[in-house]
């Protein structure tokens, strides 16, 4: 936090004394029209080495979300790499845990920083930013030569889902840097010691839950009850496996009756059954760290989560625990998608502000980040898989990451994702509320679908909410 610009009380008072009252009155809470852009210098010519026309003297401001991955990767890996090419550019590095609080006033004031790692619980709403034209169009980045090899385009070095998910209104504008891989996580040691097998069908899964419950050694299943998105994640992945990718596309596009599709209903019934029979006591009131710790203490066997889990738990995981994950089992025997199907989604999202002073440098910074060297060292530092293809090749990685990586390889093109909750905050919160109730028995599966459909319709009919399609 040492880099956060800081105003002392004295400076603030001095400033306040200088500001004329009328000016202060006008500039309080409502947005003010931005100051006229300072006459920009003649644009810098683009070249193969400098595809966006970066001005080698204009500074670059970077804001990093200081969360699970910290900020060291930016100062120690990405920025030195960027500086190696642009020694004359001053890189102003900043970090915060509260992106919105520090940066939202900058957007409203018309002088946003160039590069933002817009992540964490207090990130800015991408939908709102897109709606207001604040996201720089990053399509030129995709077509630019990659940092490592001038003959390969950036587009071909990254996971294609990054482009799909980073596109708002037909404009690619958000780069998810980390590949999140979802599944059901367990300890290989526990499964080996007890002779439990990875369930490939839903019946086998329920039988396993029953066995674990009867063994009295631990609870079969838990999820971060305080954050019911951990329960709707497997629910929706299951629905997609049963009914195919269209099930989630319909939900994302707010199609009529999308939540009442048969596949979603079956998935809701299955999750409700787990909720009623196999949860760790108190699950509904525990947060992600508490449930994850319970698993590390061998109090519960299985937990739905994403591939950040291992890094997050590294200080509490006992020796020999050996994290691994398996995909949601086959449900009906005639599912639309195969057993290996996975929910994967790029996360830790970076953007360049369209209205910043030097968006070209911002884009160039992202190009540096997407180099094999930057991504590989990032993976090594924070133990996770990036979206850059082959960047973690040859690195020694942990059991959980290995298991997640091979699951992705097995899934191939059978990966699914959903976007509605990122687009529509109110829908996300309603899904959390309703899924929590579904899991604790407060809502029947039918009532659950009814409620979700009602909220989706409400959003569809609200003219003030911008709609997105995929």
């Amino acid at each position, binding site marked *: 936090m040492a880099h956060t610009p800081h105003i002392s009380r004295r400076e603030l008072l001095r400033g306040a004394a200088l500001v004329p*009252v009328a000016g*202060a*009155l006008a500039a*309080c*809470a*409502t*947005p*003010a*029209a*931005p100051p006229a852009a300072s006459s920009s210098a003649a644009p810098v010519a683009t070249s193969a080495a400098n595809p966006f026309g970066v001005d080698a003297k204009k500074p670059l401001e970077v804001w990093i979300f200081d969360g699970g991955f910290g900020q060291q990767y930016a100062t120690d890996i990405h920025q030195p790499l960027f500086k190696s090419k642009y020694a004359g550019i001053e890189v102003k590095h900043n970090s915060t845990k509260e992106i*919105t609080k520090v940066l*939202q006033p900058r*957007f*409203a*004031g*018309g002088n946003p920083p160039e590069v933002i790692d817009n992540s964490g619980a*207090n990130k*800015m*709403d991408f*939908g*709102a*930013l897109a*709606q*207001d*034209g*604040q996201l720089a169009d990053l399509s030129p980045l995709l077509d630019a030569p990659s940092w490592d090899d001038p003959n390969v385009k950036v587009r071909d070095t990254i996971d294609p889902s990054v482009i799909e998910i980073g596109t708002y209104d037909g404009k690619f504008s958000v780069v998810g840097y980390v590949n999140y891989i979802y599944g059901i996580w367990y300890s290989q040691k526990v499964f080996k010691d007890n002779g439990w097998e990875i369930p490939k069908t839903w019946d086998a899964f329920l039988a396993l839950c029953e066995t674990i419950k009867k063994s009295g050694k631990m609870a079969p299943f838990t999820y971060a*009850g*305080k*954050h*019911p998105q951990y329960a709707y994640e497997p629910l929706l992945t299951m629905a997609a496996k049963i009914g195919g990718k269209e099930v989630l596309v319909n939900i994302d596009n707010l199609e009529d009756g999308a939540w009442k599709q048969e596949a979603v209903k079956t998935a809701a019934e299955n999750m409700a059954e787990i909720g009623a029979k196999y949860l*760790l*006591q*108190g*699950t*509904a*009131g*525990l947060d992600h760290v*508490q449930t994850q710790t*319970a698993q590390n203490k061998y109090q519960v066997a299985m937990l739905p989560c994403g591939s950040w889990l291992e890094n997050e738990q590294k200080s509490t995981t006992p020796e020999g625990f050996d994290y691994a994950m398996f995909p949601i089992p086959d449900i009906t025997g005639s599912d639309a998608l195969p057993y290996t199907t996975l929910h994967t989604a790029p996360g830790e999202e970076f953007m360049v502000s369209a209205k910043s002073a030097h968006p070209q440098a911002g884009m160039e910074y992202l190009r540096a980040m997407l180099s094999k060297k930057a991504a590989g060292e990032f993976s090594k530092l924070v133990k996770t898989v990036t979206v850059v293809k082959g960047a973690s090749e040859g690195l020694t990685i942990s059991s959980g990451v290995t298991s997640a990586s091979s699951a992705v390889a097995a899934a191939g093109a059978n990966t699914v994702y959903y976007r509605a909750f990122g687009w529509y*905050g*109110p829908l996300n*919160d309603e899904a*959390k*509320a*309703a899924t*929590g*109730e579904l899991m*604790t028995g*407060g809502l029947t599966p039918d009532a659950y679908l009814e409620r979700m459909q009602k909220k989706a319709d*409400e959003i569809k009919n*609200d003219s*003030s909410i911008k709609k997105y399609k995929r």
Partner: protein
Amino acid sequence: MLFNRYRRGLFIASFLAAPVILYAIYVISPNIQAFYMAMTDWRGVTATPNFIGLENFQRVLGDSVFWKAVTHNLGLLILLPAITIVIALFFAYLLNLGGSKGVSGIRGSTFYRVVFFFPQVLAVTIVAVLFQQVFRPDGSGMLNGPLMALGIEPVGFLSNSGIAFWSVLGVLVWQAVGFYVVLFSAGLAGIPRDVFEAAQIDGANRFTLFFRITLPLLWDTVQVAWVYLGILAMDAFAIVWVMTLQQGGPDWSTTVMAAEIYRNAFGYFRFGYASALGVVMFLFTVGFAILSLRLSRRERIEY
């Protein structure tokens, strides 16, 4: 003479000017701007919001979550002052007049007075975090730990949507009572002792003493307490936001108006709509203040 008065007026005005200007800039002006913002579709990041008239207010009417929040605020508005004042009056009475002779407090009353005040010293967020642990639903919870040791199913104080509201109410009462015990004690100290002694000589029992003497003479203080607690009930934001699951959950069972305003502004980036909710909450609060001062108006007792 006249000149002197003018000079004095100037002198006073020079002292008042600074606070009035500061108040105008930092309190009145943002309030007025909120009214304007309520009529725009501002999403917080653009410099030029669109004016959309009263559309946002129309939207408020159909916002089921907000109306749930309103009912919770109204529930708190009735229950929180009532419960807090009854408990605080009871304690204050014991501390000041509960002794065997009826004109002094029970044994150790000075000590209890300090203990009652403890919760008031803690910041609201600390109280909220503290009670998260108290209410924790597994064996590590302060309440559920012993229950589970006895083989009883853990209670979802915060995770059961039927119970969570009452847990929030309990914490608010726990936190408020101490202050009102002290307030009522001060009020009781202001009542001349001889009134109580005279009543006792006339054969009044404790019950009569409380309802015929103490309560009427404390009425002004109770009225103040009612308004303060009412304001607390209209707000209740910090406890709800920090302590409850999903900030107002589970399933919207504990959310309050202020939480929905915050969620719409900083969660959904609907600043215009959040401002409209703010205006509605403003009307509720002003309405409450006027109503409660009107209804509790009474003849002041002089002694």
